[in-house]
């Protein structure tokens, strides 16, 4: 299931676009809670390499995903400019660390297309659709695949 499938309004979908590892990505704006600056994360032992750790988001413990690492991209070296996009993913909240937020786009649904099935490219798993804006290709992120699988749910 992709975010596009969930759209019932056929007219258009609003996306928050951002840059990560030099590429253009976007997420459905409905799943974005807020955007905030980067903060020092507390490392989690034995966490996957793309989990930066946890930060304090107004009293809640927010896991931070290093999206560049998750997507297998080269991260922007200028760490100070990093931005965290707080998103809701399947009932959980997480922060996606990206290079910079670009824009809010309204894309007609018919302008979106499924990515070609290129088995060699790992990012295919994380992208649910593609679209072209001003000659740039925007990848629409499938948020469900970004979070690490949750071992044990809270009792």
């Amino acid at each position, binding site marked *: 299931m992709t975010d596009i499938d969930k759209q019932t309004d056929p007219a258009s979908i609003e996306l928050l676009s951002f840059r990560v590892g030099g590429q253009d990505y976007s997420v459905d704006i409905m799943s974005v809670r807020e955007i905030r600056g980067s903060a020092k994360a*507390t490392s989690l032992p034995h966490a996957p390499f793309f989990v930066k750790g946890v930060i304090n988001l107004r009293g809640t413990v927010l896991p931070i995903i290093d999206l560049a690492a998750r997507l297998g991209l080269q991260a922007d070296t200028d760490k100070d400019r990093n931005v965290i996009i707080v998103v809701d993913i399947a009932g959980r909240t997480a922060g996606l660390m990206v290079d910079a937020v670009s824009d809010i786009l309204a894309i007609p649904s018919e302008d979106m297309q499924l990515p070609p099935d290129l088995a060699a490219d790992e990012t295919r798993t994380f992208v649910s659709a593609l679209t072209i804006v001003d000659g740039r290709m925007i990848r629409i992120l499938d948020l469900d695949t970004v979070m690490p699988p949750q071992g044990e749910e809270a009792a």
Partner: protein
Amino acid sequence: MSDPMAEIRASFFIECEELLESLQDGLQMMDDGSTDSETINIVFRAVHSIKGGAGAFGLDDLVQFAHRFETAMDEVRSGNFHPDSEAIRLFFTCADILGDLVRAARDDTPPPNDQIAPVLEKLDLLVGVEEEEDEDLDFTPMTLSLDLGDTPPLGLDDAGALADLPPLTFDTPVGKGFIISFKPENALYSSGNEPLYLFRALRDLGDLSVRCDISGLPALASIDPNCGYLSWALTLVTEEPEQAVREVFEFVDGLCALSISPLTDDNSALPAPEPEVTYPEPDVIPEIETKAAEAPVTQPEPAQTAPAQSAKSTGAPTQPRATVRVDLERIDRLVNLVGELVINQAMLSQSVVETGLPPNSPVSTGLEEFLQLTRDIQESVMMIRAQPIKSLFQRMGRIVREASASVNKEVKFHTDGETTEVDKTVIERLADPLTHMIRNAVDHGFETTEDRIASGKPSAGIVTLSAQHRSGRIVIEISDDGAGIDRERVKAKALEKGLIPEDAQLSDGDIDNLLFLPGFSTASEISNLSGRGVGMDVVKSAIQALGGRISISSQQGKGTTFSISLPLTLAVLDGMVVQVAGETLVVPLNAILETLTLTDQDLRQLGPETHVVQIRGGFVPLLDLGAELGYREPETSYVGATVLLIGQEDGNRAALAVDAIEDQRQVVIKGLEGSYGRVPGIAAATILGDGQIALILDPTDLVTQASGRTRVRAFPKALAG
């Protein structure tokens, strides 16, 4: 909107718990010798109310049992049966089964049928109630239906109410109707009945014509306002059976002369002796209403004489003494928010300190007051989650009764401080460890009855369960007046099992603590009571999981006391804040036995990657916390390192090397599992004064995860302190 019946059902089960509690209380008072009628009434009423509610929800098993129990209690109440202690013990068992049935109904689990029959048999034998064969029919549960349609479903209880009516004869031409003659006696009026309403109810059944016979009316001067003088002849044309007509007169049965006969072609043309008072339908009702309201003949003392001016109708229903039931989630949210407040307050304090304001500046003073207020709020909020420990103690009473019966020892159960309020979750999670400890006490703690008598003790042993608040913690004590711990035997057993070295020098306290080692069992034969593969080590780990500590003290020949100390709430934790590889971590204080700085003599290298620490004759594996958590590689030397000696829940110990100890403080627990998932070696997280998140260590998990790497097993010598 939620289903109102489902809500009432849920609230019924809550009420049941309260009723079961007063049932236990009442029985306890009876057991203590009370023969007060109100005590017996409390017991009776509790059973009665459970039965009443259960009937409404069609909980047949519960109704049947409650009914038998109630019948027995009724015998006690009416003075036909004077219960001795054996009978009261049986009543306790009945109360236990009643509780089981309530919970089985609530959780939709199978009822404990195998226990019920023998108990009922004993009950009948003891109380000697002759149960009628059709007893069960007397109270037939019926599911309450809220379908208030205009065709009322015929309840089963109608059958009982109308049992003595002649059966319906189907020869009677249906669809005709009835001729009714009705003459109220004075008692009908004084019971609050009113002919007008009966006529209205009849009118609902079909076409009604009413003829009032005023021939009995005396001259005005001699009318007694307290007497009724009228009688009525009614013709009802209806499809309904006679039973429906009888039903209308159910309440006035015996308070009037009533005859009902089927309407036939012969009598349908009613003679009209007093045609002037024949009111044809449909005018009949309003006419009579006016008459009834005005005529002192049928209403000798009209309700209007009531001082209406004093009656201020509020409109709103008068609420019984109110408590508020709140969703636990809402409370937890509040607890969390107050936790935030505490953290924010700490952050603010830290900022103020950093600005270099003098300690007596208005800001600092204000902040101090803020701190106090915050603490007060936190405490009050925690108290919302608290409830009296009584319910738990009552459950333990049952354990004592069952356990003592199964090992044939006479044991009395005393409680103290049962109003002490404890966090709801703590109460729930204490049930298992306490059950085990009580079983242990009954099974192992007490001598046989003969031995007790021989040593000059009363034949009945006493188990005392007490609870109290002590310096910000809850202390629960389980004591028995049994033989005390046989230390020689315990030590021999520990040696035999290889739990202690041959030359171990153990104090009495050390020996007592051996009981908490895994796999330890002093009973040479494992009884079927406490020997269920659960040892005191499991009890200890359950208590530690609640942030608690357990200790033991025993006096030869006098008895043994287990003392459990628990935090007031699970939302905060006393922790030691430590630094490791640039990260701040919190180690639960209750896991730390002591802290020390390692010297050359303490440290032994075991393998290429493993060290042990020698502490008072025992060897303890050394774990580098930073390396264990994957923050860094192990250090080359640990001389001079700060270590925390961790008492593991299985009795084993470990020394955790940290970079520095910062502080001891209370921290608010933040779950990680909801937002991220379980992290090995980590119990939860917290937010420190600087706003940074610090992880809270789960020492047992950490040591378990690490034990493969160290490849040494420390001698779990007696636990220190």
